[in-house]
């Protein structure tokens, strides 16, 4: 019942926010507060109902994994709503839909992760995708925003079509939309049509995860969007699809080796090329976009390995990335709000002008790079440990070497911010609510970097239940 309550809370909450928005003239702060409160309530409910087991309306499964999805997605939405406080009033066309789609996007992710048939899975995926299309386009007065969002929408439609075609083939091959029946068919020996379908589904999901070669929309969409919206694009859909992929693999596909091997190849491509591309970037949003691609490669490595530990490692990766990647974008937002463009050139000497912001941003970048003591380090370590355990040493060596590239481009940002002289003088006044958000996120990075045991055992519990151990 708690899971159902959460679903209703997110759906009706979104509706309420969307309806109330026109009534409030300058209500961004109020709406943000309401949205954050809804997300907080959802998180509390998810913790309370973490171990609930039920099948709702025959197609939504309440399980620890679903609760985990609620927790992570609500956290992402909570932070983005918080981050939007800085410029919510003056810049957006109207704040209502922004917050409504945050809530609905989270709802889509929850449905996607908890679904037990292909139909609900697809609906959940599309709902969460619509939220991202809208948020990417939200800054519609700016040309880049419209351009990036349009590219994203067109390519997203293409990938959804491929995914749907894949699902159709799975249905054709197995004769069922229900995960349980599909799983039984796959276990007997995957029918060729269904296998083809599963591979096409992987293409569609790979697009949402921004895996190479389905990644090309990411830099343009991130560059066009406001950093706050980019923070959402980089966290919530990844969480939903990352967890959803694990659920789909375990509940429906089995998965056959062909699928996991394909995912492994996509992972390899992503962290190699993502990191290489990121090296050459001078625009921070594009740099973070390529770094996201690389990070999703490491995540996909954990998903491809599978098993309780592999999935839990991937889950921890999502958690760490949600915190650090989000913080990096919020730092860009704070800097942009203070008039600093999101380029390496613009960030030169930022430490002299905004020391607090610089230090907190540095913690985010260090966590992304994977510096020990921060969550990002452990996330990589868990994934690498998982790949060592299953004997993927060649992949492991490549993965470790590519993280070194990551150090290069993250530290280039820090070098500009800390060691170089500022172009302009004078202290910047940084929005206090963003600074507070960055502070919280930095604290979380450190907390999970030093004491991962609590979070990790929760993740292991969720995936153990999923796998049915």
């Amino acid at each position: 019942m708690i899971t159902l309550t959460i679903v209703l809370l997110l759906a009706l909450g979104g509706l309420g926010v969307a309806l109330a928005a026109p009534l409030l003239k300058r209500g961004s702060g109020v709406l943000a507060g309401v949205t954050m409160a809804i997300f907080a309530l959802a998180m509390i409910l998810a913790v309370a109902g973490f171990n609930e087991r039920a099948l709702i309306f025959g197609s939504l499964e309440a399980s620890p994994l679903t609760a985990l999805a609620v927790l992570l997605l609500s956290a992402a939405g909570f932070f983005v709503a918080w981050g939007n406080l800085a410029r919510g009033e003056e810049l957006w066309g109207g704040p209502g839909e922004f917050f409504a789609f945050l809530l609905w996007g989270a709802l889509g992710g929850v449905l996607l992760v908890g679904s037990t048939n292909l139909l609900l899975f697809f609906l959940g995926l599309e709902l969460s995708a619509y939220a991202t299309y809208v948020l990417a386009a939200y800054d519609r007065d700016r040309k880049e925003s419209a351009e990036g969002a349009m590219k994203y929408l067109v390519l997203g439609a293409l990938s959804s079509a491929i995914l749907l075609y894949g699902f159709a083939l799975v249905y054709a091959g197995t004769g069922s939309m229900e995960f349980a029946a599909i799983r039984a068919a796959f276990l007997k020996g995957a029918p060729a049509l269904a296998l083809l379908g599963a591979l096409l589904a992987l293409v569609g999901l790979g697009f949402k995860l921004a895996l190479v070669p389905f990644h090309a929309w990411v830099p343009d969409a991130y560059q066009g969007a406001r950093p706050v919206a980019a923070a959402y694009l980089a966290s919530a859909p990844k969480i939903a699809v990352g967890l959803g992929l694990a659920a789909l693999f375990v509940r429906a596909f089995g998965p056959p080796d062909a699928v996991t091997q394909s995912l492994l190849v996509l992972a390899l491509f992503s962290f190699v090329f993502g990191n290489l591309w990121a090296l050459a970037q001078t625009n921070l949003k594009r740099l973070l976009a390529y770094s996201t691609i690389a990070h999703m490669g490491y995540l996909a490595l954990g998903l491809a390995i599978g098993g309780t530990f592999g999935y839990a490692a991937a889950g921890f990766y999502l958690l760490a990335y949600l915190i650090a990647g989000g913080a990096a974008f919020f730092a860009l937002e704070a800097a942009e709000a203070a008039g600093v463009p999101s380029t390496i050139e613009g960030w030169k000497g930022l430490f002299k002008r905004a020391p607090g912001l610089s230090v907190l941003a540095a913690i985010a970048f260090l966590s992304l790079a994977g510096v020990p003591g921060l969550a990002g380090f452990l996330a990589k370590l868990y994934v690498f440990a998982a790949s060592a355990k299953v004997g993927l040493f060649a992949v492991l060596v490549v993965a470790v070497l590519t993280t070194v590239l990551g150090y290069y481009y993250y530290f280039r940002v820090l070098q500009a911010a800390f060691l170089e002289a500022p172009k302009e003088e004078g202290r910047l006044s940084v929005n206090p609510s963003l600074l507070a958000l960055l502070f919280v996120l930095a604290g979380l990075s450190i907390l999970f970097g030093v004491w991962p045991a609590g979070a990790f055992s929760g993740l292991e519990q969720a995936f153990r239940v999923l796998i049915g151990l």
Partner: protein
Amino acid sequence: MSYLYASHLYWIPLLPALGFLVVILLGRLFKGRSAGYFTTLVMAIVAFLASGLLVEALQAAPQWAVEGGEAVLVRPALPGFPFTFDWSWLAIQGERGVHFTLYVDQLGAIVLFMVAWASLFIHLFSIGYMDGEERYATFFAYLQLFTAAMLTFVAAGDFFIALLAWEVMGLMSYLLIGFFFKKKSAQQAMKKAFITTKFADLGFMVGLFWLYKETGTFQMVEVGQAAEHLAAGVALAIGLLFFLAAMGKSAQFPLHVWLLDAMEGPTPVSAMIHAATMVAAGVFLMARFYPVLEAGHALPYLAWVGAITALFAAVLGAAFADVKKILAWSTVSQLGYMFLGLGVFGWAAAMFHLVAHAFFKALLFLGSGSMIHGAKTQDIFEMNRLARYMPWTYGTFLIGAAALMGIPPFAGFWSKDLILHMAEEHAPLLWAMGLVAAFFTAFYTTRLIVIAFHHPSYESPWKKAPWNQGCPALNLGPEDCPPEPPPPPDHHPHESEPVMITALLGLAVFSVAVGLWGSPIFGQKLLTYLYEGAAPEILPPAKLMGGYLLGTLIALAGLFTAVALYAKDPLKQRLPDPVVAALQRRLYIDEFYYKVVARVAQWPTDLLWIIDTYVVDFLVDLTGYAVGAFGQALRWLNSGKVATYAAYIVLGAILLILGGVRW
């Protein structure tokens, strides 16, 4: 049985580390003296916790009684003792992970107590002493981290953690010695201290890794158990490598050179380095490492180095005019006694001396700080009858000096004579050297008191001496290292402010109390507490009486000789110029390092520099350029055209299907 303090013992090192973070991160918010008060408060809490821990350790430790010269076990240790704390990080899927292990036994508890309290008084004193200095808050932040590192080192249950704390201490000593880094001499001194101790640290690292190879563990308890199974040669080699590290940290001959120049730091730092932290760490390391030293028969090396250092430093102490330098020599010499004690099986006696010395040396250094503060000079000849103007400083300084000289019933008397007694039994020659050193100790201490506190101000006799121009020990010429100016002519000494006096009084109380605690008057309670299976020091007073008498006589002889020589005519030069020059230039050892060792060491350095620049750098740059060029080349793939992107997706899908079906 549950222990309130022991179960939370990790707060003891953690609090000052947090204090450091708070002050260094929020430095701007600490206006005026507030950083000093804040960190002192932190230390007060730490001292409170450490006291609670010591009380619990006293209750839980095995109880011994001395009966007719034999130690008899009255009650074994309570369960849960020694106190431990273990926290692991990165212990993934059954891996061992990184362990942070704390281990507090009798010795650990008392040294933690000592460090916490001494550091508290040093913090308190610094509130007044550092007033008005630039980077006031930073200074206290450094003190905090220095203390945290020492506390971690003492509480470490794992040699690897100990090594980390040891290195942090090295860094903090570097930063604090060079606190006035605008002075050339401070820059040179900080480098000298760092390089000297760093060289010695190599011994720690090599020894530690070798030890791990042999025993497969970093845990101190396990190392102690494994020690007897080590081959004697290996144990000796590892023991000497660790001893090298201790020599550097504890300034033993010939690695003592950095300690004198560490006086470039503010005086509370000197107290910190000489009493509570740094130099005590070397001795403490040897105490923790004792099983291996014994297994490898390395103790005679300790004894010899200790005795030579004790004697040589005590003699040089008498030749200097700078109050801090005299005290620095006395530290070197007293540390020599501790190593001598360790080397002649007087483990407990050496530890007694370590704790006692920490308190009275902190007292003397802070006292000298008070003198310098009041007199505006460091030169004892330029001080002006300070006993008249600074009664509190004078009184507390006398207590510290009596402890140093070994006048009964003060601390040094009980601890030093116990070490000498052990030397008498095991190494008569070293015993004789120790006695001579004791004479000089009393001599230079009395000389310091007589001249600084009782004589009117003179023009300092050595400043203009040709051998004292510049700082030859720091490789600086006269232009880079001008002599300290004398105090302004119209300056009148004044007593220091109450916070500083409070610190002095506190340390005086502790130094007396610790001495009495270990004395036969109170049944050598401190020593029976430290007793761990073998403590030949625990003797009935009757057996020690001869040593006590001799010690007292020698101390008095030194005292009266100094009074006889300096009371009337302090300026008279009694030794020929070349001898005085040699003594004041520290027997030219420092110059030997600069002129010979440094030059010889330069050749391989130059070679490595060439390799580094032309081979390593080239390869690194090449890798970087190659990767960067590749990254640039890949950019054309992102054309920005939607059709191209869609083509990628479709192409990727086809490839996946081909690959998957082929599978």
